[in-house]
């Protein structure tokens, strides 16, 4: 199998980063194909449980990006998101999930090039980190083999 191709999901806000990605498109800036984008009205809307679900579904890296501080279309969505991610990152570090796999950034509607760089940098960083083995080893289906009956 050729080199490991990381699967990256990008949770982006509609007003800034999604429009920035559109601009990268209109300016035909080429970047890596590993990213699947999910659109939200605001970074404030991105629930931390969705990041866990993304890892469970096989994501190796996650990009969370929205408007720069003071640019939020809803004035404070990104401020709240910023605090939430600070705490969530500490929790993941403590539990041992590699928080380098989650890339937080601000990309405005005018920063098409920054979006392309962000994607390319994330893909290469995650490629160095390798697949997200933490989740892949946790087999999802419950074990009903007698041997491990009491969740050893």
């Amino acid at each position, binding site marked *: 199998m050729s080199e490991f191709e990381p*699967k990256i*999901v990008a949770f982006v806000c*509609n*007003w800034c980063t*999604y*429009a920035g*990605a*559109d*601009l*990268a*498109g*209109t300016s*035909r*800036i*080429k*970047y890596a*194909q590993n990213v*699947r*984008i*999910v*659109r*939200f*009205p*605001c970074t*404030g*809307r*991105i*629930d*931390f449980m*969705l990041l866990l*679900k*993304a890892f469970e*579904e*096989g*994501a190796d890296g996650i990009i969370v990006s929205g408007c720069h501080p*003071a*640019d939020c*279309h*809803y*004035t*404070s*969505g990104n401020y*709240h*998101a910023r605090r*939430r991610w600070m705490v969530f990152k500490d929790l993941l570090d403590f539990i041992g999930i590699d928080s380098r796999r989650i890339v937080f950034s601000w990309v405005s*509607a*005018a920063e098409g090039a920054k979006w*392309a760089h962000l994607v390319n940098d994330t893909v290469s960083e995650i490629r160095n980190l390798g697949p997200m083995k933490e989740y892949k080893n946790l087999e999802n289906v419950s074990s009903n083999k007698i041997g491990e009956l009491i969740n050893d």
Partner: protein
Amino acid sequence: MARIGVFICHCGENIASTVDCGKVAEISSKIPGVVFSTDYKYMCSDPGQTLIKDAIKKYKLTGVVVGACSPRMHEPTFRKVVASEGINPFFCEMANIREHCSWVHPKGEETTQKAADTIRILVEKVRNNEPLYPIKVPVTKRALVIGGGIAGIQASLDIANAGNEVILIEKEPSIGGHMAQLSETFPTLDCSQCILTPRMVEVAQHPNITLMSYSEVESLEGFIGNFKATIRKKARFINEELCNGCGDCTLKCPIKKIPDEFNAEMGKRPAIYVPFPQAVPNKPVIDKDNCTHFKNGKCQFCKTNCSAGAIDFDQQDQLITVDVGAIVVATGFTIKGTDFFPEYGYGKYKDVVTGLQFERLLSSSGPTLGEVRRPSDGKVPKKVVFIACAGSRDPAKGIEYCSKICCMYTAKHAMLYKHKVPDGEADIFYMDIRAGGKNYEEFVRRAVEEDDVNYIRGRVSKVYEKNGKLIVRGVDTLLNSTPVEIEADMVVLATASVAHSDAESLAQKLHISYDSYNFFSEAHPKLRPVETNTAGITLAGACQAPKDIPESVAQASAAASKTIALFSQDLLTREPIIAVSNKSTCVGCFLCQSVCPYLAIEREEIKDRNGNIIKTVASINSGLCQGCGTCVAFCRSKSIDLQGYTNNQVFSEVSALFERSEEYV
């Protein structure tokens, strides 16, 4: 079970050149719930739209996913198509396989697979979408126009003439903006005051327009149709009702020496002043910082001289809150001062002036009553050098754009100077002459041929003062780049037009976006030049980008037409993307209320039959909620959900992210 139709657009070659649309349609047809999947060259075209309509009828579709361009572009188009067939428009979603896929990735299997994945993600979303109906919101049929320049005046008149109330606020003591400071205007050289003053008077006398000069926006809340603006009416220390504008007070003020803003610091004004003779409102204002009364509390000259008793030293700033339905931002521009230019002496030389200052010298209401006299010694300059593109088109100075109007007003300045000083010599150092407007080029030719203005194509490297003369060292690139040194009596810099210093803070107060030069950003450069990304707020004039008077007036009327269109319906239909709370599971911790930027969440008491309170829960005011969803992500018991982006919808999108297609091949 959902019956979903998938429609893949080729967008001519834009998508088909790198994405195998046929294969994507084929892969998508295998997704459970997809009963029809096809691809077509132009989905947004009429035949494309009819293709969707027929498919809806034939396959009795309940949901549609269109794989094409960005939803920010054609989502309304396809939602209208779906609605026309009786399906709730929110059962139609767009998958962005152009800007986010075909345009940014090379042709190949991986790109096609990414397109298929993007479609599948949106199919999962549509499967869980719910029908939503537009929210009807009352519209306050009153407009707020910020900025009383020609753009603000024009917008106010248009909106008011359409029968709507307008509140026009202006930061300076009088409306008129920069146009009032001009002597004559290109290309017709008709006197600026003569064409502007009637409009200013019309504004002042218009029954529908409330003029609030010397006032600024303090804060803005609410949303389209229901803005609540708080305006700070700065204290003028003049009671406007009593004052009859006789101006006696300005004559008696002992302070005479304050450089006045209207004349771009060329002239002097007293501490209590009327900016210019034709000021509207023609009421003076006391400059608090320079007035000795506010320093030592004793001087009362103006008060004693006021026959109408209109002077009131303890007047305070007033904060007035008004309900408005739409806002036109027409705050205009300013220009760079001579101190911005190291090579021209950092503003050290008095006879190096800006275009606006020279305009004031030319103006009959100017400090020199129209005679062109040098600021240093008052002599009539025999040799004037004009330097175009001072600061503009200069990346090293951080201003890359062309300020658009300087070529024309520099030609005008030279022409007017020659009219006033026939034996004078006017040289203009220029890079290119940009005279693209109607009769503009002819105007410049007239300057060259009739008034023999000497155009030298080249940049000026340095201006320095020597024995009372200004030595201008430049180059003439049309005479094989020989260096040129002119001993000039006066140098006029056509300095760059830039945004006001407080433009950024105003943008943040109004939640509208602005570019890196602090000019306000239009929603779309080509198709929506006067609207902003914030619904209900439009732009007019130079606050959006440097432009001349004709364009500002045109934009003002355009912004007015947008506002009038908004006011034409009593009820404004709003996107139903708002939050909804589940009152049975909410435990009233009100974490949501503390994060809502629009204060859209209220406390509702649930009472039992005999009136005692069982619990207080969160309830969403559908008028105020803008649908940002921050509360939804914060609610621990998931008792609030955002219509259009419900927890289940985004969760199903994430679940479908990486399901490989071979699952169901």
